[in-house]
Structure formats: structure tokens, C-alpha cells
């Protein structure tokens, strides 16, 4: 390959940039299988191989129940966001009613509020509902999201009204129109919303830390955080890193398989074709 100096520079910068992102992951995975005494010397090349950190971790914390909780919470909130987000987005994009735009702007406005501002009112609500220390407190508040509504609304707006009219004449109700007629035509948007919602839910630490205290109901990131900073790892870096790998793995795998859709959708959302 013949690279000019300009291109060479460009590639060099891109490679350095990607290394700065990739190296911490590489180091984390490598360190999680390196004997504790060698971790300090670890730079690039492996310094021995052991699975003892993973074994220790399983003994010390209820990682499998946390994994189950995380999968359950993330899946149910993703499902909820897809269903309710598309219903809301459809109404805002295709139904005519008074105050539609006002409602839409109000929903967008909530996106500008940092989560920390609503944290306390939300917690009080959970207390009043008696949902503290139940998975309901993690799932129900996450069943719809302003971002998903925005993305679905934009996706539905690109679909011609006559397609919906044709479906109505064919005998479809609004729900069938959304899920049977429109959904198959906005798959990239659905995948984007699904990935982002799943990831947000999966990575969330703060909210679970506030509403869940019972170890058996904790999610992975919550448990791993408590484990790593709470002293139960007994200052063993390898065990901490093993739990971190287990936490990051599902999202990394999902990205590897779905990154194509992710980029496609990010590039096309908001642009009318």
C-alpha cells in the first residue's frame, strides 16, 4: 500500500487514539488472569496465567444472582422502552391532538435535567410505593425514556402517512400499525434504542445503590462496585478486575455483533430520506 505523508499521519493518529481506548481493556482482561504478584509488572506481554481470581470472586460474592438480576432488569426495561417508547413516539409523530407539540417539548425538556436532580424525589416516590429493596424499583421507572421517544418519533415521521392510511383501510388498529406495519420498517432505530437502553440499564450504579440494599437483589455493577471499593476483595486487584471483566463482557459482545446497526442508525436518525 502506498501511503502519502498526509495519510500516514492520519493513520498514525487514528491508531494511537484507538490504542488509548483499547489498552485499558486489554490490560484489564490480561490482569484478571495474571497471578496477583505479577500484576504490578504487567505492561504488554502476559506474565503467567491463572483462573484463581475468578474462582475467588465466585466464592466471595453472589455474582450469579447479580448477573441474573442485571439481565432481568436490563431486559425488562429495554422491552418496556421499546414498546412504550414507540407508542409515545407514534402518537407524537402521527396522531393529531391538541397540545401535541407542547407535550413533545416537555418530554425533550426532561432530557436536559441531570438524573441527580430527580434522584431524591424519585427515591421518596419509591419509599411511598414501598418498592425499596424490590426489583420493581429498578424496572418500573425505566420503562420509558425521553431519548427513545425522540428517536422513535423521528423514525416514524419519515414514514409516509398514506402507509398508515392504507393499514387503517386494511383493518389495522393503532397497535397493529405500530408493531406490525411500522416496526419492520424502522429496525435500525429499534436496535439503537435497544442497545442504548440495555447498556444504560446494565451500567447503572447510582440508582441501584440507593434503592437496593439486599445483596441477593443487587445488580452486577452495584455488586462489583461495592465489592471493589467496599473492602471485601481484601485489596486483591486480580479479583476486582475479574469481576470488572465479567461486568463488561456482555456489552462488549453485544457491540461486536450489532455495531453495524448502531452506526447505521446513528447516521440516519433525524435525516429524512
Amino acid at each position, binding site marked *: 500500500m502506498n501511503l502519502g505523508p498526509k495519510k500516514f499521519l492520519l493513520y498514525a493518529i487514528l491508531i494511537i487514539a484507538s490504542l488509548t481506548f483499547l489498552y485499558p481493556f486489554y490490560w484489564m482482561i490480561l490482569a484478571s488472569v495474571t497471578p496477583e504478584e505479577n500484576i504490578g509488572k504487567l505492561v504488554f506481554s502476559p506474565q503467567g496465567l491463572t483462573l484463581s481470581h475468578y474462582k475467588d470472586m465466585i466464592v466471595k460474592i453472589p455474582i450469579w444472582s447479580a448477573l441474573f438480576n442485571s439481565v432481568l432488569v436490563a431486559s425488562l426495561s429495554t422491552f418496556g422502552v421499546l414498546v412504550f417508547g414507540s407508542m409515545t413516539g407514534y402518537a407524537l409523530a402521527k396522531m393529531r391532538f391538541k397540545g401535541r407539540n407542547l407535550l413533545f417539548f416537555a418530554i425533550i425538556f426532561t432530557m436536559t435535567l441531570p438524573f441527580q436532580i430527580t434522584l431524591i424525589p424519585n427515591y421518596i416516590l419509591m419509599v411511598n410505593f414501598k418498592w425499596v429493596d424490590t426489583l420493581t424499583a429498578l424496572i418500573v421507572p425505566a420503562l420509558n425514556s425521553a431519548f427513545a421517544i425522540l428517536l422513535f418519533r423521528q423514525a416514524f415521521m419519515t414514514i*409516509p402517512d398514506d402507509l398508515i*392510511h*392504507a393499514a387503517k383501510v*386494511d*383493518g*389495522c388498529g393503532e397497535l397493529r400499525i405500530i408493531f406490525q406495519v411500522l416496526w*419492520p420498517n424502522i429496525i435500525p432505530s429499534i436496535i439503537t434504542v435497544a442497545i442504548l437502553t440495555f447498556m444504560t440499564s446494565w451500567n447503572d450504579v447510582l440508582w441501584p445503590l440507593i434503592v437496593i440494599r439486599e445483596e441477593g437483589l443487587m445488580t452486577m455493577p452495584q455488586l462489583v462496585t461495592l465489592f471493589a471499593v467496599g473492602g471485601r476483595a481484601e485489596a486483591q486487584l486480580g479479583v476486582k478486575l475479574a469481576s470488572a471483566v465479567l461486568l463488561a463482557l456482555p456489552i462488549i459482545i453485544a457491540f461486536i455483533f450489532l455495531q453495524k446497526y448502531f452506526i447505521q442508525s446513528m447516521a440516519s436518525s433525524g435525516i429524512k430520506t
Partner: protein
Amino acid sequence: MAKVVFEEVAKKFGKVEVIKPVNLEIKDKEFLVLVGPSGCGKSTMLRMIAGLEEITSGLIKIDDKIVNDLPPKDRDIAIVFQNYALYPHMTAYENMAFGLKIRKMSKSVIHQKVSEAARILEIEDLLDRKPKAMSGGQRQRIAIGRAIVRDPKVFLFDEPLSNLDAQLRGQMRLEIASLHKRLKTTIVYVTHDQVEAMTLGDRIVVLNKGIVQQVDTPQQLYKHPANIFVAGFIGSPKMNFLEGILVVEKEHCFFQDLDGVVRVPIENKTGLVNGHKITCGVRPEHIFSDPSKIKTTIKFSAKVTWVELLGHDGFAFFEIGGKQHSVRLYAEELSNPPFEKAFFLDIEKLHFFDSESGMAVD
């Protein structure tokens, strides 16, 4: 098979009245065309029949049943859209079968109905394809097929041929006409193309600014336009208009142009008074260069400044009183403009309108 009745049907968007109260009866098995310039409300009227647009006041009846509050699916209508509106993720077969599936018909009945429609429309080899892999004409056939399989009481067509090229449009026009003969169903067809309106319609409704201008057969619209708008809208190039006044002398009435050059006897059926402003209209095809075939003629000469040749004939354009007029002539007569030429008007083919109200006076 059904008749559709409009009783004082009106439609407002906010404060704007897009359809003024309409009374109309579409007969059973009739092919009715709604025609008018864009924004005249013709598509809105069609969508009101379909139930896709709510009506503000009045009654719409299909087969003597009031359908004002019925959702589209319960009105037993089918609609073909300008942009086809096929479901992009379904094959042609699935597109046609979808409405039947929702109505919980058995697979064998669906198969039979889709196959029959595919045979009629000659689209059997397209059934496995998705809309993306089809041309505009093929897509429109599938869309028509989707309407046929439903076997509805009323077919609604919303400018179905506008997205097709001229040649295909002509072919599809013939096919829709023969389809109507075969299916013997009530059809309401919206178009802005007067050729489609004239060739397809049993009757035509001419609309302008949400007001029904005239409802009549194509020939009646052409021969006896009810007002200036219809006169100008039907026919291409449009009718030539000459401003003038009504002259009443004893029992006789005349149209006299503003320069006092042309004076033609007319019937004053609407009882206008002497000096009332009147507009005389004559179609380009009723101005001749050869007077031998006309009984009563008016001769005039004009300077032709521009011609349009269409092969066997064409149009010559000239100005009178600052307004452009046209005349249809044989191609041989349309030599290089500009040139001076004598023309003859057929008095029996003249139309007269009240300039203020626009209504026909003869």
C-alpha cells in the same frame, strides 16, 4: 355495489373551511371523477369517504347507512394511493393478503382471491417480489390488486397515475376503465389531470377552492360549462375569453366586446340588464381558418406570434387586447411565426358568462 351520498358535508381545518357544504349522490356502479386544481379539496373529499379525514358537519352515507363515525375498516371501501403505500417489508402477495388476513379469512380463500386478482392484473410473476424490486407501474398494479381482493363496496383512487410516466399513464388509464367494466363497482377517482377525468368518468365533479362548481357528464361539461372556472379548466389549451358588455335592444340581446368590434346575438336567460359586463368564451378548436363548414361566422384577423406543433396539428397563439389567445390548426398552416392570418369563429360554439358572478348566461 353501493351508492355514496353527501348531505351538506363540510370540512374545516381550524378556521379554514376547505370544503364548503356539498350535496352529492354517487350512484351505484358509477365511475365518478373528482377533478380540480391542487388544493381544491378533492383529495380531502375522497378521504372523507374513506374515513381518513373527519367531517366537520353533514352526513356521508354509503348504501343508505350513515358512516360519519365508522372507522375506515368498517366502511367496506378500498383505496389506491398516489404513492402506492405498499408495505415495504412485505412481498406483493403479502401486501395483497394482509387486509384479508386481518379479517381472519382462511388461507385457502386468501390464496384464491389473491391469485384471481393477480390473474386479472397480470401480475402473477411479481407476487414474490417486494415493492423495492418493482417499477412504479408494477407497484401501482399491486396497490390496485390489494384493493380488488377486498371486494369492497366502493373503490377510491387518489391520483393513482400521477407518479407514472406519460406512456404508462395512458396504458393504466385504459386498464382502470376496463377494470370498472369488469368489476361493476362504484368508483370515486381523484385527479388533477383533465384527460383522465374526461376519459374515465361517467360523471365529473369539478371542484375549486372547496366549492363544487359543476357535476355533469364529460360531454356536458365540455359543451355547457356552468361557469367561467369550469369553462377554463376543462379543455387544453384553455378556452379563450373576451371581455364585453350586454347590449339590450328591444327584444334582442347582444354581446359586444369592449372595442365595439364584435357584436353577437345571445340569449339572456338570466335576465341581465343593459350594459352588464359579460365574458365571451370560445375554445381553440372552435376557431377555424376555413369558413366553409360553419353556418354563422365572425371573421377576424390576428398576428400569430408563437406556434406549438404536436405532429398532425398544433396551436397558434396571438394577442387581442393584451391577452393571449390560442387556436387549433393543422400542422401545415403553422408556418414560421410571426404571420398575419384570418380566422373564423363559429357563433353556435360561443359561450357567454356573467363577468361578475362567473355564471353562464346563455
